[in-house]
């Protein structure tokens, strides 16, 4: 914009309005950025176009007037009060009517534990109600991922720790590393986009998000709704290894598994190759042993059968002989032999056994059978 000056002799003179306009247009070319400070002198009224406050430097108390469209301010639904620490996103401008330099606020984020915690708590409640953290949403991690996606910041430690641990357990592991911003206002969008990009790569079966420890504020992006949703909707299982044991960023709740450190994440995503091979060998040994046992059992059963088969005729004969013997015994018991032994005799004629004296006449020939031997005899007389 051309700013008109008038000449007073050799002096170029600007009107206040022209001057302000000139400075204003020059300021308008400066970039939009975030400014951190403490809110003081907050002024908001219904009917006003803008909300005004002064942003005070946290260290030396330098001041910066801020104006922000009231509708934008109200839409944030912040219960902002003097003394709150905030990040204001805006661009410098000149309020030309008054010649006042100010920051034109476009967005604002409250800083500080209290506000951030409250916001996270609200988000947690809302997302939990949506079922985003439900146990039945959790997916099982693959036993042996074809490829692991690793999402880290450019800090060396988390990445190195994970890669060291993962290759120690499974030397032939394939890892696709994506670096992303993990801190600052751009981080949430960056993390979400990188997660999506990683999961879309071929053969990536699981993604590990590794971020070393940091302050509460440092880990805030991992409680950002965009990141939490990206975890939940990721097409492959996500392992969260963000912060330290005591930290619970919301992404941990949406992840399919949580690891306290990048090293612990490595233990979760790949099996120990040596153990895996040992286990396979053990199973193979068991396989052979159990099969042999079943075959052996079959062989034993067969051997027993054949033995019975061989023995069967002899057994049958023996049984028959035993029965025969018992018959013989009974037969013997019935025979008159035993009676003869006691001194009795059997008297026969040619007509048969003599039971009555009248059956024979004197002079008849008798055959007398004794226990031992027999006699030939003649009847002297008979008595009836």
């Amino acid at each position, binding site marked *: 914009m051309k700013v008109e000056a008038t000449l007073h002799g050799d002096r170029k003179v600007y009107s206040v309005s022209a001057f302000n306009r000139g400075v204003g247009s020059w300021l308008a070319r400066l970039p939009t950025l975030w400014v951190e400070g403490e809110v003081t002198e907050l002024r908001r009224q219904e009917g006003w176009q803008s909300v005004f406050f002064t942003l005070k430097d946290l260290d030396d108390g330098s001041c910066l007037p801020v104006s922000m469209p009231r509708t934008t301010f109200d839409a944030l639904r912040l219960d902002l009060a003097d003394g709150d620490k905030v990040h204001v*996103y805006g661009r410098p401008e000149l309020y030309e009517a008054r010649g006042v330099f100010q920051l034109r606020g*476009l*967005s604002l984020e409250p800083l500080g534990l209290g506000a951030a915690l409250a916001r996270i708590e609200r988000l947690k409640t809302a997302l939990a109600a949506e079922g985003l953290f439900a146990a039945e949403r959790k997916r099982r991690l*693959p*036993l*042996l991922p074809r490829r692991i*996606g690793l999402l880290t910041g450019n800090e060396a430690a988390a990445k190195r720790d994970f*890669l060291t641990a993962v*290759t120690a357990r*499974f*030397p*032939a*592991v*394939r*890892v*696709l*590393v*994506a*670096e*992303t*911003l993990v801190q600052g*206002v*751009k981080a949430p*969008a*960056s*993390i979400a*986009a*990188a997660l999506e*990009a*990683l999961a879309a*790569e071929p053969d990536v079966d699981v993604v590990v998000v590794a971020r070393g420890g940091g302050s509460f504020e440092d880990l805030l992006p991992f409680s950002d709704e965009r990141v939490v949703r990206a975890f939940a909707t990721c097409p492959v299982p996500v392992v969260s290894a963000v912060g330290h044991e005591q930290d619970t960023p919301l992404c941990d709740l949406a992840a399919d598994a949580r690891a306290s450190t990048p090293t612990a994440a490595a233990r979760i995503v790949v099996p120990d*190759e040596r153990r*895996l*091979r040992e286990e*396979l060998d053990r*199973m*193979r040994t*068991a*396989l*052979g042993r*159990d*099969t042999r*046992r*079943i*075959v052996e*059992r*079959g062989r034993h059963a067969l051997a027993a059968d054949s033995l019975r088969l061989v023995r069967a005729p002899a057994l049958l004969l023996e049984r028959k002989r035993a029965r025969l013997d018992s018959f013989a015994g009974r037969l013997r018991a019935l025979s008159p032999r035993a009676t003869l032994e006691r001194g009795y005799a059997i008297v026969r004629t040619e007509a048969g056994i003599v039971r009555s004296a009248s059956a024979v006449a004197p002079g008849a020939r008798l055959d007398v059978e004794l226990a031992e031997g027999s006699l030939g005899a003649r009847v002297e007389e008979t008595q009836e």
Partner: protein
Amino acid sequence: VSQESEPTFEQARAELERIVAELESGRADLEEAVRLWERGEGLYRLCVSKLDAAEGKIEELSRRAESVRPEH
């Protein structure tokens, strides 16, 4: 990759485990046992060959993420 015909490592290992348990229980008859054993041996060889074939590789994904603009 013909996913239908060849099981993944995980599937193969899980089936091997089932087969071992089945044989261990001693319920299988002789014919079944021999069939299971053959199948188990095949699965074992498949698992080992998959482990042997794996090749370590660490790659970097281009930093597409950083071009993302803030939404304000």
